[in-house]
């Protein structure tokens, strides 16, 4: 029995160590702030630890942890919406959106980061999981707890908004006309 527990712990340790970098990066794309991203992943991993016996028996522990991560992100966002008292006007789900000037906007990454921050959470989740995590639509649907159709529409809407937002910022930053 003790040996089994030790094995479980060792497997979990390996899981955490190997998945940590990727999960933090995904969380960073979802929430836009490093410390918040680490907190998000840590909270998700705590939940995974509690259910580790079930998770390790499942075919895809990665799918499970992604689902927990997305749920945790959605939960925090919902809570944030409720916490009207603590939100300042213009807050965008914790994303760091520094004052933008032309130089900042000229930074390609900054533009994408800002455009991403303006997406609603579900669309951001769909875009990040579909294009950054490179998951299939059905895998994204599992992670987001919705249908494949919803994933398609959320990702398409997110993509369209990203295009529009980036095109707008491109013009603002004086990078030429947008066709």
């Amino acid at each position, binding site marked *: 029995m003790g040996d089994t527990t030790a094995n479980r712990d060792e497997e979990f340790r390996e899981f955490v160590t190997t998945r940590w970098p990727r999960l933090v990066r995904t969380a960073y794309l979802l929430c836009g702030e490093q410390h918040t991203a680490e907190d998000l992943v840590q*909270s998700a991993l705590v939940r995974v630890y509690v259910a580790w016996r079930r998770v390790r028996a499942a075919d895809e522990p990665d799918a499970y942890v992604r689902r927990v991560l997305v749920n945790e992100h959605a939960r925090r966002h919902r809570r944030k919406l409720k916490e009207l008292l603590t939100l300042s006007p213009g807050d965008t789900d914790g994303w760091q959106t520094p004052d933008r000037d032309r130089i900042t906007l000229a930074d390609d990454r900054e533009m994408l980061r800002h455009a991403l921050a303006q997406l609603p959470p579900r669309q951001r989740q769909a875009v990040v999981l579909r294009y950054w995590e490179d998951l299939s639509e059905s895998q994204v649907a599992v992670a987001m707890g919705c249908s494949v159709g919803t994933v398609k529409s959320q990702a398409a809407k997110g993509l369209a908004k990203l295009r529009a937002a980036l095109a707008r910022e491109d013009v603002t930053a004086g990078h030429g006309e947008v066709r």
Partner: protein
Amino acid sequence: MNRESWYAEPEYAGDPDREAGELTDRLGTIADEVTIGPAPYPDVVRAGRRRRARRRVGATALAVTAVLVAGGVGLGQFGDFGQGGTASAAAPASAPAPLDPVTTVVGKGKVDGKRWQVSVTVYGPARTKEEAHRQYDLAMRRGDAYPVLDGKWEGGYPKTLRIGVTWFSTRVTEGTGKPRLMSDWVSPKRVKGETLLGGSYQHQGAEAGPVGMAWLDPKVERVVVHWKGGTTDEPKVVPVKGTDVRWIVSERPGHGVSDDFIDLYDGAGKRTRMGPAMRLEDLKKKLPVAVKKEQLEAVTKAGRRTPVEITTVR
């Protein structure tokens, strides 16, 4: 990097694969900005064990409650605050994670055509100095804490940190103004049979605000606030998520009107009357020895109340 990108480049339009590949690359450049530290495996395991233990306790408590209800026993019968009861009417709530505070709106209303709202945010106990630093960062970012407790700093952080204690902050919004931090407090230590009353009654400047507020022992079931001038109010007793302390918020009958006395009733209807002077004295008596005298004086001079429990980091 080529600025002619997936979002504006006409030749990509209609080529979803190439478009997707471009976006993946670009997301990757952002994701690569993150500094990846070592995986916090020990922290995860420690928190996981605590969570598992809490769930077990919760399941046990649920089972006990179910037995009591099935047996036709009201929980209120066990509440005998003021007499040193042996059982609590409310099970202690599990504190939230230190970096995941929870907020409860404890009261809202309208005075002179302006809406007001009061909320309480509970922060779970930080376990280490590093965690307390991160919690402090979070609280400051959210505007939930005062910058310093004692004016001493160490490496960009207050020298006095809250470690191992649950604490909460209260915020009020008046009209269309921005939320205003009223106070941040360390949660009162549960003392059997006692009722600790605090809140803006003693808070400098709060007398002019639209409301008075107080925290209550979990055994208090009903409250009647008697305002100077003869009016009374029976505010709703609101449990705050993440703590077993309850709160009341009572609307002032007029600007600057202070409270006269407050009647607290337990589940059995037993009344305890609290007067303003008595409450202030009670607060001083309840301060643990950990709070130094000079610290108390400094905070009192500054017009702020003193947290009841402080851990100093060396």
